[in-house]
Structures are given as C-alpha cells and as structure tokens.
C-alpha cells in the first residue's frame, strides 16, 4: 500500500494541487534603520495558504523531478543558518522562528551597520546555495550613507524563471512580496513609484507580485531620502 500511495495516489494528488492552486506564498522583508546605520531585520516566508498542498507534498519522495526534503533536514539547515549568522559579531540577537503547522518561517536579528546586514544576507544565500547547488554572487543589497538609504536590486530572475518547467513556473503565479523599511527620521522622498509612505512619514512600504518582479515589470529597487 505504501508503494501504491507513493507512486500513484500521492503524485496524482500533486498534479491536482498544481492545477487547482498554482502558488500561494508570500515574502515579507522588514528593515528598521537607526540614524547611526544600525538596526534590525526580519525576513519572513509565509506558506500557510498552501499548507494543505505542502502537507501532501511532504509525503512524496519527489515533485516535478526534484527531491522533496524531509522536515528534519530542513530544520538542520535552518539551525546551520542560525549558527552561521551568530558567528558574525556584527549580527546579534539572531532568531529563526519556525511554524511547521502553518509553514511560516522568519529570520530576524540586529545589525551594527549596513555592511553587516549585507554580509548576513550573503551568508543566508550561501547556506541555501550549498543545498541547492546554485552559484553565489556576493552583492550589496542595501546601502546607507548621508541619510540616503538604498535597496539595491542585482537579480535577473527572468532567465532563471524561463529555464523552469511549466509546472515549476506555476509555483510563482500568485506569490506576493512586501517590503517595509522603518526609520527614525522622516522620509522626504523615495524613487520607486510603486512604493507608499506611511501616514507618520517614517516608513516606506512596497507591495508587488513575485511574477511582476520576475518579469521586471516592477522592481524592489528604491532610494529613500531621509530628513
């Protein structure tokens, strides 16, 4: 019965999943910046809308030709990321929260300066690259000087997206991205036309679909001028 379940029933359910509910996840990126360039970050991946599908997928050996990782392996990877970030003294109070019932994961911590934040992000990419076998390019993702905060965008996801199979592409169909940057000084101006400033004038938010980012219809690049 186990063989029948793994080879016939569950793959059939997977096909049904991808037809009925192509993609339901969201990414939230939050950075709280102090005037001296230190601050805190929190990167959240929320898969709760797809939890029924993920529960079924986790029972399979592979999906779309890719091996399905075991939960224990994923937990080990997250622990390794936490250890790696903690080693860097310029990143403190590192916390990785894991909700395996609703599949919500968040990495958060404090940074002493923007370079430390960039280093932390590159470390996280390094850890994921080891598992996915993809090449890493170190980049600055943020910069801050002279009261100008920049979110930089180096990624060309279109090529990688186009190389995916049809089924893999479906994963991104309705996925969402939100970034929120909070400051101690008020925001005088910002460059991204799709971003919004809060009523208090101390925060900037950008919401986009992942597909718009992949197809370069929108960008997360933003230059924020502070008073």
């Amino acid at each position: 019965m186990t063989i029948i379940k793994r080879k016939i029933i569950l793959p059939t359910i997977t096909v049904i999943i991808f037809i009925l509910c192509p993609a339901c996840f969201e990414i939230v990126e939050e950075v709280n910046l102090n005037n001296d360039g230190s601050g805190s970050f929190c990167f959240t991946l929320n898969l709760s809308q797809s939890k029924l599908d993920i529960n079924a997928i986790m029972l399979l050996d592979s999906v779309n030709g890719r091996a399905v990782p075991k939960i224990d392996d994923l937990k080990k990877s997250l622990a390794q990321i936490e250890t790696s970030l903690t080693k860097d003294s310029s990143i403190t109070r590192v916390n990785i929260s894991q909700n395996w019932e609703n599949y919500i994961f968040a990495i958060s911590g404090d940074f002493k300066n923007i370079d430390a934040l960039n280093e932390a992000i590159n470390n996280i990419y390094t850890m994921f690259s080891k598992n996915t076998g993809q090449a890493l390019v170190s980049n600055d993702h943020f910069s801050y000087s002279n009261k100008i905060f920049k979110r930089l965008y180096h990624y060309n996801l279109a090529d990688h997206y186009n190389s995916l199979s049809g089924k893999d592409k479906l994963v991104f169909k309705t996925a969402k991205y939100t970034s929120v940057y909070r400051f101690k000084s008020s925001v005088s101006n910002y460059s991204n036309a799709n971003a919004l400033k809060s009523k208090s004038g101390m925060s900037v938010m950008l919401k986009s679909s992942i597909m718009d980012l992949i197809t370069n219809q929108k960008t997360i690049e933003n230059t924020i001028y502070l008073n």
Partner: protein
Amino acid sequence: MNSIKLLLLLLLSIVTASFIHAQDLRNLVPRESSFTGVADMNKLKSKAGFAELAKLPFIEKMAQSVAEKMFKDSVKENFAGYLDLGKYGINTSGKAYFYFKTDPKVYYGAMLIPLNNEAEFTAYVKKLTTDTAGSHVTVKNNVKVASIRELKLVWNDKAVALWNAFISPVYKDSLRKSMEGFLYNPTGVSVDTIAPPPPPLQQDDSVAIVEAPVPPFVIPDTSSNSLQKDTTVNMDSNYNPSRDPYMVMYNKVDSICKGITSEWCRDHEANLLMDKGAASLSADPEFKTFVKSQPDIAFIVDYGQIASIYMSSLGSMASMFTGGKSPLSGFTDLYKGMVFYAKIEHNRNDIVLNASVKYSGMMKEIYKDVKKKNIGADFLKYMSNDLMGYYAMGIDIKAISKGVGNYMKKVLPEIPQYGPIATSALDVLDIFIDEERLYNIFSGDVVLAVNGIKPTRVIHSTYKFDDNYNRTEVNDTTTQMRPEILLMLGIGNRGDVEKILKLFNTSQLLKQYGNYYGLAKNNSSLPVYFRIQDNILFITNSQSFAENPVVYAGDKQLDKTHAALFKKNTSVLYVDIASITGFFAKDTTTRYQKNLTSATALFSSVTMYGSHKPGYAESKCVLKLKETTDNALVDIIKFINTIYENSTKVKYE
C-alpha cells in the same frame, strides 16, 4: 516468450486480411487449458473497416514491426505485403483460438488458425524461410512442420498451429537442485553423466509429493579431481567461468532443459492438430453456453491451474517440507475448479465485457450463506451528479466471516508447526469475542466516492499593516477548490461506532470539533474528518462536508441509473472518464494535454458491476464512448493512433 508476443501481434495482423468462411477449430483446443481465447474474425471485420484502419500510421507501423521481427532474415522488402494473410491460404473469416497449457515438464502456448488452401500456405512458409528446395518444411504423421525463428508451425489442410514451448520453471528448479547436490560428489563422477531427475508430480489429492533425493554434502577431495580443485569461486581478474563448477552446472542445466524441450516438441507437435474429441473445448458444455451469443472475443481462465502453477513456483517454500502435502495446497485448493469466463462485444457507442466466475468447491462453501444481494440506497443522496467516480460494495459481513473462518479452520491445521497454534488461538478468541456484535457494528455497505471539485475552506495566516506599516499577523480564510473524497460506511450499531470514535478521541488520535472529529495534527498532516449522520459513518477530506453533510437533490443528485445498479448488484465501480481526463487536460504544462483532450472527446465513462449467485458470480463492464458514427472498436483504434501520432510529433518537435 518472445514467440508468445509474436503470436499476439500476428493475431492482430490477421484481422486486416480478406476472407472466406471456415470451420470452427474448438475441437482441436484442449479442454483443460489454463487459458483459452477465441476471436471471431468475421464479426470483428464486419464491425471495423479494417481495410481503412490498415492505412492508419499506427497500424502500418505495427505491421512493419511484426514483419521485421518475423521475416527479417528472409524478406528484404515489402514487409507488410507478407502480412496480407488472406492471399496465402489462411482463412481469416473463421475463429482463431489461442491457448496456454502446462505439462509436468513443459509449458506451451498455441494459436490455431483455419486454412482454406494448404498448398498456398506451404508456399508462403517456404517463401518466408527462403526455402526454395523445401528442406525446411518436413512432413510428419500427415502434418507439415516448419519454424520461423522461435515460432513453430504445424499445419494440415484444415488449420495451422503457431506455437512454442518452454521448460517448466518448477521442473528446471528441481533439476538445478539435484545437480547442486552432485557438485560435491566424492566419487568424482562427472556432471555430464548425471541423468536429469524425474519431473515433480502434479499437486494432486491422492499422490504425495516426493522430492528427488539430494546426496549429502561431502568435504571435497583436494587430490587430482580437477572439478573439486576449482570449487572456490575466484573473483579476481583470472576468473574463468568455464572452470567455475557452478557456472558449468548452470550451463549444463540449461543445455539439458533445451534438450528436454526439443524432445517434447518433437513428440507432441503432430498432436496439436489432432481432434481431441471429449477432451476438447467443444465438449465443454459451459463454454458452449457461454459463447452461444457469438461474442466478438471470448476467453476462459482456469484459476485453479494458474494458482497451482504459481504455488508450485514457490519451490523453495514447498521444498522445506518433505512428505505429505505442501502447506500451500490448502490455498491452492481454494481456486481448484474455479473458472473465469469472459466475452467482449464491440457495439456502436460502447464495449461490453460480460464475465462469469464459476466458484471452486471451497469458494462455494465460503459464500453459501451469503444473502446480501444489493447495496444500501441511503448513500446516493450524498453523491452529486458531478462526481468523478465511485466504488460501492455490499458485503454480507456475517456470512463471509463465518465462511472464511470455516475455511481457515480447514486449512490452518495442515500448515506444520504454526497451523495448529493458529487454530487453537482462533478457538480461544471465539470465547472472548462476541462475533454477532462484531458483525453488526457495520452494515456491510461501503461507498468510496470522489465527488468532484468542491470549494474547501482554508484558514491561513496573513499580515495586516497599520497606518505606520507596523505588521500584525491575522487569520484569513480562502476558498480553494479540491476534489471532495467521501468514504461512507453503513452503520449497523451506532452506539458501538460512537464508542470507537470516542476511544480514539480520548487517546488523542482524533480531535473533536463539535459534532464531528478530525485527525489530530500530530498524527497526520492530511485533513481527514469523521462524522456520523443517518446511520452512515462519513470519512472525508472536506471539513465543510464534515460540519454539514451536503444532501444533493433534484438535478444535483446522481442519475437514477446508479440507484438501479445499487439495487441489483453487490459491487459497483463507476468512473466518469471524461470528467477526469477533462480535469487533467486543464494542466497546460503537461505534455499529455493533447492525448487527454482527445480522451475527453472520445470517452464517456466506465461502469463495472457484479453480484453473487449460487455457485458463481456475474459481472459486467461497460466502456461507454461519446456518440460517434463508427463502431467503438474503430474509435478506440483511431484513438490509439492519435496517441501514437502525438508521441511521434513530440519526438521530432
């Protein structure tokens, strides 16, 4: 075994040829075959315009494959021309028979095809074997004999038998075991001089199985005997298999088996076309009755023989016991005398298979008290008219349990060592278990239905941002479309079922949500819910359904034909093929989308239903197609051609 495949391919190629009427050959078919098939070529050709179908790329490709496999060595061009069999003395308007039979040493299969011109056929064989001098065709006991690659032919003026044989695996296994014993023969007797053992006796009530005696193991003499010096397998680069005694033995066994098979074939080939009279299929009254309606295709499977072959092949288990009956003989006896009859008719918009299973003596005993003849109708109102399929059963739990229990009490004691212990354990259990109460927990009616794609509520987390973009996590509900799966069990004693669910709840396997239960999260990540209503236990993946079971009425309820099926049968399987293939065809990323779309346009549904009668079971399977102008057989062949064309296009795109 390749020749068996060739036989089947050849059968298919025969239907493309023209014809003249000929006699039935059932008197040449042995009555006691393990498998027998008959195809009425005349009927098949009248229903399907084979001349037109022969032009389809798929059929052309198949014809070429058959011709290349069979005639590669002898025919260089125009392969397909050699398959226009009507031109070569073969009568393709009669009935072709295929059967498979076992002998103590050899298994063989044969196809019998009527001839209308022996001389033309003989010339055809000579052409195929490039035998201009006629030396490949021999005459023996008024029949002609030849072979084309692995396929053997025997023919006279009435019919041709295409056949082949292979050594019985059971016999080969016993031969190998005997030879292994002689490997350590201290007398230095060469393996070459060892005669093969007698074949194992058939499993029979009156005769005990006697294994060929195995010589005792003797420490090898390491003196001059070259065979014994090399009893250690040398795995390094100097290993020479010709000096490995095990390889020598295996090769010897193969050689002996080939010799036995060849000798058997020579002794029996002329008998293939002999009228077998009372021992032929024509003397089987049940077969005569079964094919009275002149079906397109019919076949018979003797389950008893097949089970016997299978059980015998578990040689290592049976050989653990010496003397007396094999411990598996009780299970073999379950199928002894059990015969499966089936006939197929190809109609305009459907293909119908009618089947009948004649019970063995033991099966009759098991089913003798079964009274249940239908499936409860209460389930139907929970099955919507957009369902994708269902399987329903009505089991007489008490009668079957008693029947199986009595059967086990007969069989278990015969299993050495553990059998008597198991029998005693069952007797003790009888003291403590109230069987009547156990049988009545459920009514015996079970339905598993896939009710179509329904909205499913999913509560998930998302984020809300206040005016200053501070984030808070909130719950949100979305509706996702999922197939609604329902397993419905008819309840006999509601109180007992509630007690069971309560036990699972208190032991935290289940979690209670008001008037229904769900699997506790730590036990399963998949949604499974339990609900009792109307004396039915529902087990479903839909929380909405578990909260409030939907009753479908009017247009939304399942078609009344299903109620009729439930009323007259004890098992029903229904699959709405169009609904399922149409659903999967929506997946634009699949490379099978074209095939799925074609399938949706052609197929409607398949329904299988059956019921028990005294001494036998009857069943019917109807594959329904959508309205077309052609016979269903033609539609299916054209569909297969479409799949073939799609696959070749994908390869070259």
